[in-house]
C-alpha cells in the first residue's frame, strides 16, 4: 500500500514536470514575440500565403486552443504534421527514434558499468596512482564539449593518424541501426568518453562516503573478511546512489545525442532536432523536445523508485 502510494506520488510529480515542460516548450517555440508563419515562409511571402499557412496549421486559433490541440495530439500519438512537407511527424521520425534509442541504449550499456567500475576502483584505490591518473584524465575529458572530443577522435581514428573507422555512419532508410556497426564505433566512443568521466566521479564520491563510514570500519573490527565488508556492508549502501547515477547517465546522453549525431551524420532524433530548428519546423521541434523530456522524466522516476526499494530507511518509512 505504502509503496503504491509513493509510486503514485512520484508519478504525479513526473506528470507535473512534463506539464510544466510542455508549457515552456510551447511558449518558447511558438509564443515568443515572433511570428512562426513569417519565420517559416520568409520576409518575401505575401500576406495571402502567410494567412493560408496560418489556417493550415491552426496558427490563427487562440493560444490556449493551439496549446490544447497540441497536447491532445501528443497524448493520442498524433503529434501533428511537419511544416516542411506536410507529412505526419511520426511517419518520418519513427525510424530515427529507433536509431537514437539504440545509440543511447548501447552507450548506456557501455558507460554505466564502466562508470561504476572506474568510480568504485578509484574509490578503493583512493589517492593512489590509478585514482590520480583517472582524476586528471576524467577532468580533461569532462571539460571538453562532446563535439570537440568527437572531432579529435575523427582526426585520430578516421582520417589523418590512423584511418581505421568511418567518420560517418550509413544507415539506409528502413534498415535497423545495427546494420552499420563499424560506423557506430566512433559515435559510441564519443558518447562514452563524454559521459563516463562525469558519472564515474559521482560514483567515486558516493563510494568513498560509504567506505569511510563507521559501519564499514565496524565490519572490519568485527573481523569480517574484506570481501564480506565490501560486498555485504559497503555495496548495499552504494546501490541507492547507483540508481541515481544511471538516471544521470541517460539524462546526459539525451542532451549529448544532438551534438554527437550531428557530428557523425547519424540519422537520429538529434540530427532531426538540429534540422528542424534550422528550418523552423516547429511541430517537429516541439515533439522532439517533449519526447526527450519524457525519457528523462521516466528514467528519473525509475531511479527514485529503485532507490527507495533498496534503502531500508526509506522503504520502511512507508509501512
Amino acid at each position: 500500500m505504502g509503496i503504491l502510494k509513493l509510486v503514485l506520488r512520484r508519478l504525479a510529480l513526473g506528470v507535473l514536470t512534463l506539464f510544466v515542460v510542455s508549457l515552456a516548450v510551447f511558449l518558447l517555440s511558438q509564443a515568443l514575440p515572433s511570428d512562426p508563419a513569417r519565420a517559416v515562409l520568409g520576409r518575401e511571402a505575401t500576406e495571402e500565403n502567410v494567412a493560408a499557412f496560418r489556417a493550415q496549421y491552426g496558427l490563427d486559433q487562440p493560444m490556449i486552443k493551439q496549446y490544447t490541440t497540441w497536447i491532445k495530439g501528443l497524448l493520442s500519438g498524433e503529434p501533428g504534421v511537419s511544416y516542411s512537407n506536410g507529412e505526419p511527424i511520426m511517419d518520418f521520425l519513427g525510424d530515427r527514434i529507433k536509431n537514437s534509442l539504440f545509440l543511447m541504449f548501447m552507450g548506456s550499456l557501455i558507460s554505466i558499468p564502466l562508470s561504476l567500475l572506474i568510480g568504485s576502483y578509484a574509490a578503493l584505490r583512493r589517492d593512489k596512482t590509478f585514482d590520480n591518473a583517472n582524476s586528471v584524465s576524467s577532468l580533461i575529458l569532462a571539460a571538453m564539449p562532446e563535439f570537440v572530443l568527437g572531432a579529435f577522435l575523427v582526426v585520430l581514428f578516421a582520417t589523418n593518424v590512423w584511418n581505421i573507422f568511418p567518420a560517418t555512419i550509413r544507415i539506409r532508410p528502413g534498415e535497423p541501426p545495427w546494420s552499420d556497426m563499424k560506423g557506430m564505433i566512433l559515435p559510441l566512443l564519443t558518447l562514452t568518453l563524454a559521459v563516463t568521466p562525469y558519472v564515474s566521479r559521482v560514483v567515486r564520491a558516493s563510494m568513498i562516503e560509504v567506505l569511510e563510514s563507521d559501519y564499514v570500519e565496524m565490519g572490519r573490527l568485527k573481523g569480517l573478511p574484506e570481501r564480506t565488508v565490501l560486498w555485504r556492508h559497503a555495496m548495499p549502501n552504494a546501490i541507492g546512489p547507483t540508481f541515481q547515477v544511471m538516471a544521470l547517465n541517460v539524462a546526459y546522453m539525451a542532451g549529448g545525442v544532438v551534438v554527437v549525431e550531428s557530428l557523425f551524420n547519424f540519422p537520429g532524433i538529434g540530427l532531426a532536432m538540429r534540422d528542424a530548428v534550422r528550418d523552423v519546423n516547429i511541430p517537429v521541434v516541439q515533439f522532439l523536445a517533449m519526447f526527450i523530456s519524457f525519457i528523462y522524466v521516466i528514467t528519473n522516476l525509475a531511479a527514485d523508485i529503485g532507490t527507495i526499494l533498496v534503502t531500508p530507511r526509506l522503504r520502511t518509512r512507508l509501512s
Partner: protein
Amino acid sequence: MSEHVTLDIRDLRIEVDGTGNDIVDEVTLQVPRGQVLGLVGESGSGKTTVGLAVLGHARKGVAISSGSIEINGRALLSRSAKDLRAMRGSLVTYVPQDPSMSLNPALRIGTQILEVLEHHGFGSSQQERRERVEQVMTEVALPNDRDFLRRYPHQLSGGQQQRVGLAMAFACRPAVIVLDEPTTGLDVSTQSHVLATVRDLCHQHGVAALYVTHDLAVVANLADRVAVMYAGRIVEQGPTKAIFDNAQHPYTRHLTAAAPDINSDEPVIGLRGRAPAPGKRPAGCAFALRCELVTDECREQFPVERPVLRDHLVRCFQAGRGERLTPAQTPVSVRRDSESAPALQIRHVDAAYTGHQVVHDVTFDVPRGQCVALVGESGSGKTTLTRSVGGLHREWNGEILLDGVALARSSRDRPTAQRLSIQYVFQNPYSSLHPRRTVGESVSRPLRVAGASAREASHAAAEMLERVSLTAAYASRYPDQLSGGERQRVAIARALVCKPSVLVCDEVTSALDVLVQAAVVELLVGLQRDLGLSMLFVTHNLPLVRSLAQQVVVLADGKVVEAGPTEQVLTRPEQEYTQRLLADTPSIAAALAAD
C-alpha cells in the same frame, strides 16, 4: 599486578603516518580477567587510538609503530591480516561510540549479530548460532523474537542500538572488550542501564574490559582501575579509589577537581589552556605548559613512570607535591533582592516544533541577580523554550516578560533595546562565531547595532575581552586561532558587551573538555557575582548545576516537573522523576563511598 593478565599492552607507540609525530607513546597497561580498566582523557589525548590499537586497527593516516599487545599471551600486532581478522570480533571486540553510525543501515540487526558468529566459526549449525543470538539478546535485555531481529537499526532507539552493539561484542564470548564512550549521547537513565549491563556481562563472563571515556563519574562507578591519559601518554594509573582519593599527578588532581558531582557541593575548579597536539608536543612533560608545579626539569625531559604505591604508577617529577586545589574565588554570595521584580518571567508558555507541541504550559521566573538552571534530557523541550525566550523560535503562545514587559514572538518584532537586553550564548563555540570575522568585530557588533560608533564599540569590546580573562590582543584574531574555551569566552564577551538584563546560556559547556568546562563555569560564577547578572542556564548536566545555579527548574516532556532552590531540588527532590534522574546520574562521591 594481579594474576591472569588478559590484556597486556607494552610500550605502545602510534604515529601520524609518514611524519614520525607521536599520537600515543610509551603506553603500558594491563587488564586482568573480569576487570574493567577506565582509560580517561580529554578529546585528542589519544585514548580512542589506543582502544582501536587493541584490535590491531589504526585509522587512515595513523600507524602503530612499536610496542606489543598480548591477549591471553598471544601477541596481536605481529599477526598477518588473516590471523588478526580471526581474533577481531571473537577474541577481542569493540563497542563503538555512536551506534547509529556504526550499525549498517542496510542490514537487519539479526544479520549483523549472526554474521559475527558465522565468520568466527561459532557452533556447528545455523540453529546453534541462532540460539546464541537469542541468548545474547536476552543478556543485553532486548527482545529476541524474530520480528525484533528482523528490524533495521533506524527502527531502534539509541539505547537499543547500543545494546545491539553490546550483543555483537559479547556474542563470541571475547577475552577482551574495548568500549569507546559507548554511552555518549544517551540520556542518564539509558546510560545507567547500559553501564549496568556492561558491568554484569564483564564479571559474568570474565571479560577484561578497556573502557575509554572522558567522563570521570562513569569511570568511578564502573572501573576497577583507572589510567589517565594526557597528550598521548599515561600520566597516572592505579586502583579507582586511589586515583580519586589520592591523585599524585597535578593533571589528575585538576581533573577530579574540575568534575562536577551530583553529591558534592564543592565548586568546580577549572584550568585553562589545551593539550599540545601531535607534532607540537614539547620535549619535556606535555603538561608543563599548564602546570603550577613546573620546574626546569619538567621542561627538559618527560618523567618516567614510577610507582607511588603498589599498583599506583605516576609520571611526574613533582608527584604528590602541591597543596589541595582550592577555588580561586570565594563562593557566590548572591544579593537576593526579593523586592525588585524578576528579570524574566515565563507565563503559561506552550511551544510547538513544526506543528508538534513540545512545551506545555511552562511557568517560572528568573529573579534579578540570580542564576536559574533549566534542566532536562534531550527532547524535554528545553532548547525550544530557550530559543522562544531569545526570539529565535516563533511557534509559541503564552507570555514571556522581560523586566515586566511582554516580549513579541520573534526577535525581529522586538525593539532593539529589548533584543539587546536578552543575550544568548550558544552551545557550540565552534559554530557560534563567524569564521571570517575577527574576535573584535564579533564582540563589538551588538554595540554597533545599538548605535555606538566604531571607536566606542571597539573600546568597549576590548574592555569586555579583559573581563572574560582574555587580553585585548585577542580582538585582532580570527576564531580558528582560538581554542574551544577561548571561543566560548569570546561568545560570552559578545553576549555581555551591551549589558543585558538576562543572559541565556544554552548548554554552553557541553562541547568543552572538563577542565575548560570548569574554567568557563568559574568565569560565569564570577561574572554573576561581579555584575549581578540574571542568568538562565540550560543544561542536561545535572551535577554542573550545583556549582552555578541558585534555582533549578526540571523539565521533562515539555512540562515543569519540579522547581525550587538548587540545594532542595538536588538533595530532597519531591517528584519521582527528579529522584530517578538523580539516582541514575553517576556520582564519584557516591561510588567511592559505596566501595
